[in-house]
């Protein structure tokens, strides 16, 4: 089981009652509401065998609370050393060696200037560095998010489409 991280954008901000019900359903999420309540998102740190299974389980949790998901996407960019270690499948000690330049590692991205002086990095910078160094592979997830979002849209329009079973049979022929 690994910790899978991603963000689900919602149709509208949650009510307090929905937040309470969501946390009763799962404690592996946080809920952010944007400035002036213009948007809302559920940010997920979920243990699961795979990212796909983590996303599906979370969608089902949100379904039970009656939340409408607009889009599922990659996690926010700010990451700690331990998150980098989880994603790169190495130890925190290895990440610290990279950042200190030990063992001849150079060019490790600078940390973000965080309030309180805690050390966090941008995953977009770290990912580029890991790939350029070829130290290990980071799984590509773009196609997975495309597939999930197509499925969410299909699910939303399905009740209004005549002959939907013929269309969804195309999907059952996959894999």
């Amino acid at each position, binding site marked *: 089981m690994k910790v899978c*991280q991603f963000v689900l954008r919602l149709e509208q901000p949650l009510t307090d009652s929905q937040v*309470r019900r969501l946390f009763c359903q799962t404690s*592996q*999420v*946080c809920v952010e509401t944007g400035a002036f309540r213009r948007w809302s998102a559920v940010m997920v740190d979920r243990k699961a065998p795979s990212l796909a299974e983590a996303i599906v389980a979370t969608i089902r949790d949100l379904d039970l609370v009656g939340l409408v998901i607009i889009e599922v996407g990659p996690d926010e960019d700010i990451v700690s050393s331990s*998150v980098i270690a989880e994603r790169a499948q190495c130890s925190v000690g290895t990440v610290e060696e990279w950042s200190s330049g030990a063992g001849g590692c150079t060019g490790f991205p600078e940390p973000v200037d*965080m309030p*309180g002086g805690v050390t966090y990095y941008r995953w977009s910078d770290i990912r580029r560095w890991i790939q350029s160094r070829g130290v290990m592979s980071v799984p590509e997830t773009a196609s997975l998010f495309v597939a999930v979002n197509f499925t969410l849209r299909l699910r939303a329009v399905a009740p209004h489409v005549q002959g939907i079973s013929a269309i969804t049979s195309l999907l059952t022929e996959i894999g």
Partner: protein
Amino acid sequence: MSDVTFEPLETAVMIAVDAGLRWVRTDRHRPWSRLTCPSCGGSLDVPIGVEFSDSGSPCHCDLSSEQIHADHVARRINAFVYRHRPGKVHR
């Protein structure tokens, strides 16, 4: 909860206070707490209980479940504080 480290979580809670954000006192029976930005009303709901001292300052954190790791919640709090720091356009 042998693998749970509370230090980063408690540090994140205090950094948020120092940055001028507010923890909303919630019902003790609710397994969640809310961090709000007084400038724009943006908020972050997290599945932890933040306990307050008599002076109103956060003094203790409890995770509502051993399934989550304190470090992950701490990251969400720190990232929210970063997005709502002074001088930043709040979205």
